[in-house]
């Protein structure tokens, strides 16, 4: 009976070709949305995870609650680490290197206009880890040993002074001349803003300001496994130094990774949720098509019952039709989804050019394909269940009505 049902279903769908194709299109679009959004979410997850896990031996110690608030720039809590804190860390076992991020403010002058800017000093190596080359709009990175050279944010270059600053431009900071080697792209709403950053080497920073206001300690450890315990020790020791329980937060990349993963996880659920709306609409489409078909075939159903079809025979005929529609639609949807995710990624990548350090590649997993196939089959069955039930309940007397 299985093969007969398939044959019968194909014949009936072919008989109403344009309607079948339109219904099929609906389900294809739904599945396409799911596949491409899943691929995008997965790509995003992998890109972020990949980037962060290369930093898994890194611990960031910041003042206040959140590593992100101090990470990478401007935002300073007004509290700084002391040399005693650094000394505590240096005494610990298993630490490969320590570097610091210094924060302060200075008077900058360009083209005759003076304004206060916030300064960030960093070791060159740390700089390279924190900012990827793609985040630069113009120019290049500072190099080890560079003196009196700075990198500036988009806002400093274009919105702070009367005239735009370009690479090679000269800014006076606290009376000293600095050359701009690189300008960051506009970051806008992106998480950590580097728009108003003025970035120089730690050495220049100390020389210029005579201060060493450490806003962030950045350290690498020898063994990734010790990350959590070292972080706890450091946090405890520094808090003790300052006599407060919440002075410092030591964040490992693993914990950041977990946070990010849970965020991208939520994002994926949201994306799939949105795609599911398309699928719900599509399944209503199937139901509608099937109901119309049942109405049109009232007589045919009556005839089949009159020649001995059981209710189950009739039901399975219609459910098969629904399943065939949705599974063919699903397969087309998967193919479209493969292309769709590429397209979507292209668009997203061009939007994220402004400071997004990562380049997305869509990742289509076996799981998402299996999910799509299962979902489309289920949609087919569920949405044809009611029409099939209605068909099965028709009476054989319909065969001889309207004579």
């Amino acid at each position: 009976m299985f093969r007969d049902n398939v044959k019968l279903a194909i014949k009936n769908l072919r008989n109403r070709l344009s309607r079948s194709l339109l219904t099929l299109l609906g389900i294809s679009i739904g599945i396409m949305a799911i596949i491409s959004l899943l691929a995008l979410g997965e790509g995003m997850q992998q890109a972020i995870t990949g980037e962060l896990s290369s930093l898994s031996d890194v611990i960031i110690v910041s003042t206040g609650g959140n590593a992100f608030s101090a990470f990478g720039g401007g935002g300073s809590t007004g509290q700084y680490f002391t040399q005693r804190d650094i000394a505590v860390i240096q005494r610990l076992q298993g630490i490969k290197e320590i570097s610091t991020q210094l924060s302060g403010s200075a008077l900058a002058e360009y083209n005759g206009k003076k304004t206060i800017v916030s300064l960030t000093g960093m070791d060159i190596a740390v700089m390279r880890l924190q900012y990827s080359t793609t985040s630069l709009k113009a120019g290049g990175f500072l190099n080890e040993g560079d003196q009196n050279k700075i990198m500036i944010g988009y806002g400093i270059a274009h919105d702070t002074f009367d005239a735009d600053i370009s690479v090679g431009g000269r800014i006076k900071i606290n009376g000293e001349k600095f050359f701009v080697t690189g300008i960051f792209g506009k970051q806008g709403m992106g998480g950590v803003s580097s728009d108003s950053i003025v970035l120089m080497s730690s050495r220049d920073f100390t020389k210029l300001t005579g201060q060493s206001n450490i806003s962030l300690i950045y350290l690498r450890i020898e063994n990734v496994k010790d990350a959590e315990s070292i972080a706890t020790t450091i946090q405890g020791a520094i808090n003790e130094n300052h006599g407060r329980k919440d002075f410092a937060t030591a964040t490992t990349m693993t914990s950041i990774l977990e946070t990010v993963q849970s965020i991208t996880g939520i994002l994926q659920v949201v994306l799939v949720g949105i795609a599911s709306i398309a699928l719900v609409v599509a399944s209503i489409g199937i139901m509608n098509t099937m109901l119309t078909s049942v109405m049109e075939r009232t007589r045919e159903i009556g005839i089949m019952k009159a020649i001995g079809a059981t209710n189950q025979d009739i039901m399975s005929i219609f459910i098969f039709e629904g399943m065939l529609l949705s599974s063919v639609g699903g397969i087309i949807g998967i193919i479209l989804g493969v292309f769709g995710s590429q397209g979507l990624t292209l668009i997203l990548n061009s939007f994220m050019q402004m400071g997004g350090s990562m380049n997305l590649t869509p990742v289509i997993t076996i799981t998402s394909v299996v999910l799509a196939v299962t979902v489309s089959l289920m949609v087919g069955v569920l949405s044809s269940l009611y029409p099939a039930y209605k068909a099965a309940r028709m009476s054989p007397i319909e065969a001889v009505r309207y004579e």
Partner: protein
Amino acid sequence: MSKDVIVTQNISKTYGKPPLQVYALRETNLQIKQGDYIAIIGPSGSGKSTLMNLLGCLDKPTSGNIIIDGSDVSTLNENELARIRREKIGFIFQKYNLIPTLNALENVELSMGFAGVDSQTRTKKAKQLLEMVELTKRMTHKPSEMSGGEQQRVAIARALANNPSIILADEPTGNVDTKSGDNIMRILEEVNKKGETIIVVTHNMAIAQRAKRVLRIQDGEVKEEHV
């Protein structure tokens, strides 16, 4: 004496509720034997189709019992009724009632499919039946590509597919010309000669005269006509 294939006990059928109630069939008692060839005649609206639909288990009587091959069908559930229709009864309609999306061969195979016959046996049997009704050349034609007479012969082949014990034909010649009508009746008579029970509704007295028994219905009352 051959056995009874259908016995009706006081069956009646009414439509609608009391003030506007229509008696389509009044207390009818019939005994139909294996191998009978019965013609049912009567004016339009007299209840011929009503009786046929009841005998064919397409509809249920308002009261009374129908016994087919020894079992009382009023006690059967829907699936058991479907089995009776599939195994014991072959229905031939005035308007052929073939499935429009299927060709002649597939239409004949369909009821065997519902009976669970495997596809090879099915195709073989369907071909034999179509040969018998002289449609070997029309096997792959859809109903829309055949004449009324040809469609009705496909319908006969379909009705015979599951070797039913009773053939019910409600005005099988009503929509075809005299020549095709004769052809159809000749086929049915041949089937009857092989022992099949045939019940035919007709308006055509010439056809009715060829039957072994004639039942006349008037206002829902069935009377045996003695010829």
